[in-house]
């Protein structure tokens, strides 16, 4: 593998793969560096029914199709790498992976995505998979006729709470605010379900159990009173956080640590673009990530072509 590329893309989710497809099809020498699973958050979705033109597909299949498409146009992909050093501010960008391989490029697209937010209470990491879950479709059937809690107040939390009533005898939704962020039809459906109870303005402050989850400590945000509730399982759906820690101090980030871009996906550093769930925006969907990736690719392509034209003119002079 050669070391210099026209464009390096950091991240292999919907935005990164789309950028890879567009750039490699435009004959740009393109490398995707991905430190997680190809497909990113996309593979967390079992069935996608609102991707235009495709009636029904799993996130895994859609991700695999995008990957195949990118590879077919000549895009190179390095998976499960760890970025150990990078220089994005110089004219020629450089990224070192696994402490030994360095790749350079004229432009970089950051499509680092996001990851599930954890509650952050004591016991959470230790009891993951032993009563604490982040995937209802994966683990719901372990909780047949058991009492569970769903944490969160967005679309995912309420939709999954309803779906979990197929298995659980009782579902309690614990939410930190006095109202839900979810769309009204998700809220209405949850409220109409006799198996679902609500504990509002409250947070889980501790997960209790030795070998498995046995109880949680819940604190009311107004009164600060705490109670211990015995429970069989907790499902957590409290949104995502952007994977931008490594860009802090290099790129302009907003107060949510999302990368600030303009409508052409241009960051504050020339030649560095960003796309997908890691950028500052309101709606995070596969379709919006695909749109971001497309725009970032076209912008990066124009940037690289301008460099090539300038270099060629300088050589002629």
């Amino acid at each position, binding site marked *: 593998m050669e070391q210099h590329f026209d464009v390096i893309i950091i991240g292999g989710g919907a935005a990164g793969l789309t950028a890879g497809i567009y750039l490699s099809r435009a004959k740009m020498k393109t490398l995707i560096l991905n430190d997680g*699973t190809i497909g990113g958050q996309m*593979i967390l979705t*079992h069935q996608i029914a609102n991707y235009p033109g495709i009636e029904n597909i799993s996130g*895994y299949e859609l991700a695999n199709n995008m990957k195949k498409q990118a590879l077919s146009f000549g895009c190179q992909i390095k*998976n*499960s790498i760890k970025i150990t050093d990078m220089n994005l501010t110089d004219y020629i960008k450089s990224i070192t992976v696994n402490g030994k391989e360095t790749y350079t490029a004229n432009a970089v697209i950051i499509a680092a995505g996001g990851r599930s937010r954890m509650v952050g209470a004591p016991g959470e990491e230790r009891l993951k*998979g032993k009563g*604490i879950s982040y995937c209802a479709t994966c683990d719901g059937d*372990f*909780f047949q006729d058991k009492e569970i809690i769903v944490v969160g107040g967005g679309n995912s939390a309420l939709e999954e709470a309803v779906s979990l009533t197929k298995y659980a005898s009782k579902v309690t939704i614990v939410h930190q605010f006095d109202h839900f962020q979810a769309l009204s039809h998700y809220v209405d459906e949850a409220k109409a379900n006799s198996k679902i109870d609500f504990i509002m303005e409250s947070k889980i402050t501790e997960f209790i159990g030795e070998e498995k989850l046995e109880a949680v400590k819940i604190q009311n945000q107004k009164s600060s009173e705490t109670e211990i509730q015995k429970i069989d399982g907790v499902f957590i759906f409290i949104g995502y956080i952007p994977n931008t820690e490594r860009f802090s101090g290099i790129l302009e980030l907003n107060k949510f640590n999302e990368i600030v871009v303009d409508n052409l996906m241009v960051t504050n550093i020339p030649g560095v673009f960003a796309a997908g769930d890691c950028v500052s925006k309101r709606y995070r969907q596969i379709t919006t990530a695909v749109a971001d990736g497309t725009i970032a690719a076209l912008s990066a392509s124009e940037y690289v072509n301008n460099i090539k034209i300038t270099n060629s003119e300088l050589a002629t002079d």
Partner: protein
Amino acid sequence: MLRTNLPHLLSEKEHSELINNNENVMVCCGRMGPMCIPVYEIMEELQSEYPNVKFADMEFDIPDARVIRNLPEVRNFYGIPFVIYYKNGKVVKATSSIQTKEQITEILVNYLLKN
């Protein structure tokens, strides 16, 4: 059958042969879901890095997967995949739900490959 590039264990007999004929074995028992797929992909990558370990998957819902589902080590597991690490045919470590490459590598090194 799981759609992975790992050897598939389709029966108790195959499972038994694998763990008894190899010193170090890692088996991921799951479905094609979001918590399982990343683990399969990590295992596919680790196959070349750790030739002394045999990697395989087993579909969680086939009857013969009881050989894993009924292990005492997984009685408190409430999240797939169930990942079992065997040394000379004995379970030395088991994990529930998704794990990172770093977490898996640490287990391989500390439980299977040390000594």
